[in-house]
């Protein structure tokens, strides 16, 4: 079945350093979504990318969708302690657009 691979699994950074997580699929995706889950919390939708090569920004967060629509990345510039959490990418399943395949997530810790 469809798989979405996400790396790295863990990332530890010093506050002020940059952070990037990557998501890859073997199949072309109709869209890619990103979610953030704070420690002890629930996943919260961040953004959806639909177009080939699309780039979207939310303050210090930059989201990219690959030209082939098979990969995506989330980059955080100058991390802050408020960025701590697990970041998941997710893509609609080929057989059911209403169900999502989630990546395993990247757990980000930020040392102050």
């Amino acid at each position, binding site marked *: 079945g469809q798989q979405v691979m996400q790396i790295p699994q863990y990332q530890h950074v010093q506050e002020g350093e940059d952070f990037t997580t990557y998501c890859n699929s073997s199949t072309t995706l109709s*869209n890619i*979504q990103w979610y953030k889950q704070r420690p002890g*919390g*629930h*996943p*919260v*939708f961040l953004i*959806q990318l639909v177009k080939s090569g699309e780039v979207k920004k939310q303050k210090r967060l930059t989201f990219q969708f690959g030209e082939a629509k098979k990969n995506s990345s989330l980059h955080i510039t100058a991390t802050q302690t408020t960025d701590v959490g697990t970041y*998941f990418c*997710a893509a*609609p399943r080929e057989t*059911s*657009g*209403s*169900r*999502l395949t*989630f*990546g*395993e*997530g990247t*757990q980000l810790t930020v040392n102050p």
Partner: protein
Amino acid sequence: SQTIHQWPATLVQPVGSPLSLECTVEGTSNPNLYWYRQAAGRGLQLLFYSVGIGQISSEVPQNLSASRPQDRQFILSSKKLLLSDSGFYLCAWSRGRFGVGTDTQYFGPGTRLTVL
């Protein structure tokens, strides 16, 4: 605006006891509803999916069942809990098939279940 509620927030149950977790959505009609389980430090495992009242799709064989007695109510149940049922249970909704952005999911606060 739409809101999603789950209860209880935490639950400690003995092995072999029954389980009932409830999820309700407000502010939308005909939502798709989902139950996920998340083990500590792990990803999201989809357990059940529903597109309407009484319509339940099971993703994996397990000790759990789901029901949707009303349009915006989704219930997760078990007759006899196992130790392996421990985890963080998340309910989510997305807009139904006739809505815009039908695949974006919105999660409830979750229920932390510990089976002893």
